[in-house]
């Protein structure tokens, strides 16, 4: 079974600064996908960024980028130029590349942005 671990229950960052959220995972599969989801107080999970395991290049989406270290099974999220609207719970998630598309989530990191 796959597991996803987020070791930082809470993080804070000054507005306009950069913050990195950590995630490690455990799997015996070679084909899989990794995700970062944002959950604001509205509770709706919003996809921030996605990484295919077979791609060596790290994914980027505007101010969001990942550092994907496949051998170390590490998948961190970097948020640059943090904005007040970035404050939320962030969840790292994993899904196998084979079969059905079921997400396994970590426990989340609560990010606060300080004005």
């Amino acid at each position, binding site marked *: 079974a796959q597991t996803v671990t987020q070791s930082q229950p809470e993080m804070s960052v000054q507005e306009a600064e950069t913050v990195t959220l950590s995630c490690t995972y455990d799997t015996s599969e070679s084909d899989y996908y990794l995700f970062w989801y944002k959950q604001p107080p509205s509770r709706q*999970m919003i996809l921030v960024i996605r990484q295919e395991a077979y791609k060596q290049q790290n994914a980027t989406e505007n101010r969001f980028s990942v550092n994907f270290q496949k051998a170390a099974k590490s998948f961190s999220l970097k948020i640059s130029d943090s904005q007040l609207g970035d404050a939320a719970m962030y969840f790292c998630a994993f899904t196998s590349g084979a079969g059905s598309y079921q997400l396994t989530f970590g426990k989340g990191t609560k990010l606060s942005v300080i004005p």
Partner: protein
Amino acid sequence: EAGVAQSPRYKIIEKRQSVAFWCNPISGHATLYWYQQILGQGPKLLIQFQNNGVVDDSQLPKDRFSAERLKGVDSTLKIQPAKLEDSAVYLCASSRQTTNEKLFFGSGTQLSVL
């Protein structure tokens, strides 16, 4: 496009009562998921539908939970009887297909069992 709709937004019940949650996925999305998110944890998959058939319900507590997706569109998740440990947010998500597709989530139903 309209998002995934869920109702009610909040529900408070006494233990041993029954409760039902409703989900209307994005039009045209064949796959529908129900997740349970207990406070302080990430969402956990309860059941996955492909059209109106069940793909995986291995983590659904079948002695008290049931779910259906009639006509492959709307879905209902029911708990009967509810226990204190069922207090959680119940999230519905949908996607076009089962693999390699972005999931769209609803805003969930927050259930409190007293």
